[in-house]
Structure formats: structure tokens, C-alpha cells
């Protein structure tokens, strides 16, 4: 059981900055995120895009903002559960929250701050009528354990980094045959990976099929063949033990939608007049995941919400302790040992 003062669900910019503001009040934080890296949308969707409305930064790349936040919160020694989705919340006999992830990791704290942004990032699913039939029987949307693909016929679809990186990984390491199918001639992935894939294709280590897409799946209780259609509308069948359609991730609100929180338009309703508290005492929602009259989904607004929220969290955690707002210019940043 991981014990802390505030469980923060979501390690995007707002979740990360919460650690700083909480740390100034001597509150410790633990962050949970479904992505394997901190940064949320900034890391997953647009790390190389500039942001122009972070006060004090005329322009900053989203990835750099995340790096800076990680540096800023380092003195407060946050801990992380990454690559795991928070699926369940309950209260124990002491009135503390227990948040459990899908993988079973348990966390305990008197306060929960949901900074879940747009929600859980989950794989996009190709619209193939019988795809469900083959899920976990040859079709996988993410690579969990690469070892199961050893010496198998693998087909990968997609033109982004994930598709290219895994195609290269399998071709370089242990697959008998890797086929990469992409709907166009050009790729969105890094040039370097594209070049490597082209070289591997020339050497016959990757079977590269361009201007084509998978349109059907066949097999008897497990995937055996995939049907591919090219631009000339010709259809071919390819033997496949596994098909990995890697078309990126899309966010969905996810399990928190079933936690008994008041939800409106896919966001958690909070009291913005006070402290961004939800209808569950001790649970707060900040950043893009919340809604209230006049809400703006901006990182800078999330930073404000986090700052207000931790003051309320402090009073909840230490009801008998007095506190006064301090300025970092005066008191500095006193991290945890």
C-alpha cells in the first residue's frame, strides 16, 4: 500500500504543478497516470509544439514545460505509479481514500485530486466488423509483452512512431517475419525511423506494403489471415499470427466516470467559488477534467486551480493546524529530506 497526503490522478502539467504547491504546505503527493511517462497530453500528443500562453514564457515547447515542471517539483520528492489506470476508489474505516489501479496497485490518502485532463489515453480501434472476435486472439492494440511475438508472423499497421518503432524492434530482434502496412507513401514517424524501415525493407527484413490497408480478418478461433486492399482495389490475404493496429491513442474519461462524481459534458462538476471540490468530500478535480461556469481549458487556469485546491486540502488533512500563505521569494523552497 502506497501512503501519501494527496493522491493525484493524472501526471499532466496541472497534476505535476500540484506537487509543488502541496510541497510548499509540507504535503506529500503521489501521482498515478495511465501513460508510462509524466506529462499527459503535452508528452503524448504534442511534445514538440510550442505553447505561447504560459505566463513568463513567450514560447515554450510542451515537452520542455513538462521537463521544467519535473525539475521544479523534484525537491518535494513526488512518487509515481505510471502506466496504470486508476480504476477504483473507496473509503477505509479511517475515512481515507483507497485508490486502486487496474493492475492492483493500492494507494491511500486523506485527499484525492483528480487532474485527469481529457481522461485515459486508450488505443484507437480500426472499424473492422469482426475485430472484437480476434481481440486477444491475435489482435492487440498495444504491445504489453514483446516476448509473445517471438518467431511469429507479425503484421503492424500505422504510420506513426509507435508503428515504426515496433516494426523495427521486432525485425531487429526476434520475429520470423514482420509486415508493415501503411495507407500512404509518407510516414508521420521520425525521419530516422522511416529511413531505417526503408533500409530493412530493402534487405527483406521488413515486408513493407504501402498505399494499402487492412480491411478484414480471418481465422478459426484465432487470427490466421488478414485481408489487405491496395489503392488499385486489389485484395490480398496475408498469413498472420498477430496484427497490431497501432494508430495512436485517444482520450476517454474512463473509469472515473463511474466513481459517483457529478459529471456534466464529460467533465467533473466542481465548486469554483471555493476550492474545486467535487460532490465527494475530500475529492477535488482540477485542470481540463473539471467544469464550472466560465471554465477555460487552459494549462494556466489549471495551475491556478491547483494552487487554490491544495490550501483546502491542507485544512482537510490538518484541521487543527493554522496556516498562512507564504511567498517563495521570502521563504524559498524547502524540499523534503
Amino acid at each position, binding site marked *: 500500500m502506497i501512503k501519501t497526503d494527496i493522491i493525484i490522478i493524472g501526471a499532466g502539467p496541472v497534476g505535476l504543478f500540484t506537487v509543488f504547491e502541496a510541497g510548499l504546505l509540507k504535503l506529500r503527493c503521489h501521482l498515478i497516470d495511465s501513460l508510462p511517462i509524466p506529462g499527459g497530453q503535452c508528452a503524448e*500528443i504534442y511534445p514538440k509544439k510550442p505553447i505561447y500562453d504560459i505566463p513568463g514564457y513567450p514560447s515554450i515547447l510542451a515537452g520542455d514545460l513538462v521537463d521544467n515542471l519535473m525539475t521544479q517539483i523534484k525537491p518535494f520528492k513526488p512518487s509515481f505509479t505510471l502506466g496504470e489506470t486508476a480504476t477504483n476508489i473507496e473509503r477505509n474505516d479511517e475515512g481515507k481514500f483507497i485508490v486502486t489501479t487496474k493492475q492492483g496497485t493500492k494507494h491511500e490518502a486523506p485527499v484525492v485530486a483528480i487532474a485527469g485532463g481529457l481522461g485515459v489515453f486508450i*488505443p484507437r480501434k480500426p*472499424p473492422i466488423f469482426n475485430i472484437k472476435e480476434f481481440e486477444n486472439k491475435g489482435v492487440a492494440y498495444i504491445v504489453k509483452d514483446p516476448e509473445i511475438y517471438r518467431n511469429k508472423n507479425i503484421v503492424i499497421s*500505422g504510420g506513426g512512431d509507435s508503428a515504426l518503432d515496433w516494426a523495427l524492434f521486432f525485425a531487429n530482434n526476434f520475429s520470423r517475419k514482420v509486415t508493415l502496412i501503411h495507407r500512404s507513401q*509518407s510516414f*508521420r514517424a521520425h525521419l530516422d525511423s522511416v529511413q531505417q524501415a526503408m533500409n530493412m525493407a530493402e534487405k527483406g527484413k521488413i515486408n513493407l506494403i504501402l498505399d494499402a490497408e487492412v480491411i478484414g480478418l480471418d481465422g478459426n478461433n484465432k487470427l490466421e489471415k488478414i485481408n489487405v486492399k491496395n489503392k488499385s482495389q486489389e485484395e490480398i490475404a496475408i498469413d498472420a499470427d498477430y496484427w497490431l493496429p497501432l*494508430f495512436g491513442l*485517444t*482520450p*476517454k474519461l474512463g473509469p472515473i466516470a463511474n466513481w459517483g462524481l457529478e459529471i456534466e459534458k464529460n467533465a467533473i462538476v466542481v465548486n469554483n467559488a471555493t476550492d474545486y471540490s467535487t460532490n465527494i468530500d475530500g475529492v477535488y478535480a482540477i485542470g481540463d477534467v473539471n467544469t464550472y461556469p466560465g471554465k477555460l481549458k487552459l494549462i494556466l487556469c489549471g495551475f491556478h486551480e491547483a494552487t487554490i485546491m491544495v490550501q483546502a486540502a491542507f485544512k482537510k488533512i490538518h484541521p487543527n493546524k493554522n496556516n498562512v500563505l507564504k511567498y517563495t521569494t521570502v521563504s524559498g523552497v524547502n524540499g523534503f529530506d
Partner: protein
Amino acid sequence: MIKSFSMENNFVKITVTDRLGKEHNLDAPTDMNMNLMELCKSYELPVEGTCGGMAMCASCQVYIESNHVSLKRSEDEQAMLDEAWNVQENSRLGCQIKLTPQINGLKVKLAPEIAADEDW
């Protein structure tokens, strides 16, 4: 001669057909640096626009049903559409269509929603 300022001069008409086939006639301001995805969201039509307008998610895909907008796609837009589904010859990303006087009378239809693997 001083021209009198009229707000009406800064609007164009756009028709959006939603996924249930219902037509919505929208007044689109041309002086707010907005795009079609943002316009749809401002009218609370079911357009996600997850990436905020960076041509990086295809959740604002539309089909152009009139001759008002060039079907020429930007490089980023093309790359994104290459990885999207239900893409047709007349597909564009709403976030890449600027609201300008030239698109007055534009008709578009929303593409189907993106399906996702909801096994958390």
C-alpha cells in the same frame, strides 16, 4: 467615404450536418481567427477536437459537400488523414479550415466518431 461598421459583414453562413443527419445553420465569424472545428464546438456540436487544432488527432474530420473549400490538404493534415478511418476523397480536418469570407455557404458533414478500445 467612411464605411459604417456592421457585425453582419463579419459573418458567413455554414451548414453542418451532424451524425444523425440533422442540418445546423451556423453563423461563422470571420474576424476571430477561428476554424471550423472551433465553430462547431462553439455551437456545442459533437466535435471533440481533442488535440486543440494541431491536425494531430482527426477527431474533427468532416466531409466537404459543397464547392466552397479547396480539398487540398496541408502536409500535416494529409499525414493525419493517412492514419484516420472513414476517410473519403472529400475529407478534411475541420481544424485546418479557417473561417474566411471565401467559405460563405460551405456545407459539411461530420465524419463518424473515432472508436477506441475501452478495456481500461
